[in-house]
């Protein structure tokens, strides 16, 4: 398997989000890692789009539009090969995670498709949010 990037350790690729350029950087990096891990075109698109939604939430809602994205290649797990993306911010947090996962619900100007959309595109999603402290969203996709 070709190594997709020379950034950081070979199994982890960090991307810093500071403004909207970070959305494009994060999703492009996620796509590259997905491709290198052997994900097909549709899964690459699903992963890049999910990362785009989560990164946009950071830009929209987190303090200063800043956050951290960590893209991880998952090898030798019982479920096989996978890709994990952790998106973390120090924003206001999500008051009601269940509500935020409902289609069409938004506290901002968005469509309310970001979180529920990202969840549908991935195999797993966990949200860890503390009001006033920040939000960490972890998504995973397993190679078929």
């Amino acid at each position, binding site marked *: 398997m070709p190594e997709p990037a020379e950034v950081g350790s070979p199994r982890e690729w960090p991307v810093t989000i500071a403004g*909207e*350029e970070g*959305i*494009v950087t994060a*999703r*492009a990096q996620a*796509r590259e890692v997905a491709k290198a891990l052997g994900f097909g*075109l*549709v899964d*690459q*698109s*699903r992963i*890049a*789009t999910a990362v*785009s*939604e989560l990164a*946009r939430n950071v830009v929209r809602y987190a303090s200063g539009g800043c956050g951290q994205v960590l893209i991880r290649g998952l090898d030798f797990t019982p479920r096989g090969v996978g890709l994990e993306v952790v998106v973390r911010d120090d924003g206001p947090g999500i008051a009601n995670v269940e509500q935020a996962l409902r*289609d069409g619900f938004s506290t901002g100007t*968005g*469509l309310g*498709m*970001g979180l*529920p*959309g990202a969840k*549908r*595109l991935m195999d797993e999603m966990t949200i860890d949010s503390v009001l006033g402290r920040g939000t960490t969203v972890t998504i995973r996709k397993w190679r078929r």
Partner: protein
Amino acid sequence: MARVPIVRIGQTLIATVQEELYDHDALQLQEELGLLLEQGSVQGVLLDLSTVTTVDSFLARLISGIAITSRLLGAETVVVGIQPAVAVTLVELGLALPGVRTALNAEKGLALLTDRGRDA
């Protein structure tokens, strides 16, 4: 990053969206199309997405917005060249671009727009 180039051929505006579009480029595209439509005599807008690999909810909403705006200003929009992987993703995302006309490629899209121009 370059803006989205808009070319005018006859009464049709052709915008070719590049691979990785920044939000501000997308918003600028919408604004520029609006200004060009306002000047009149535009019958159709062709949005070519053939090199676009990621369409998220923001871009999907913007594309729908462009289609609605141009209709209100008397022009028809046709979106062409959506990649199969992007199409699948959009459906799963729950954003299948309702009300937006599509064609497989630029040639077919242009044919749709010019046929309409002839009928009008």
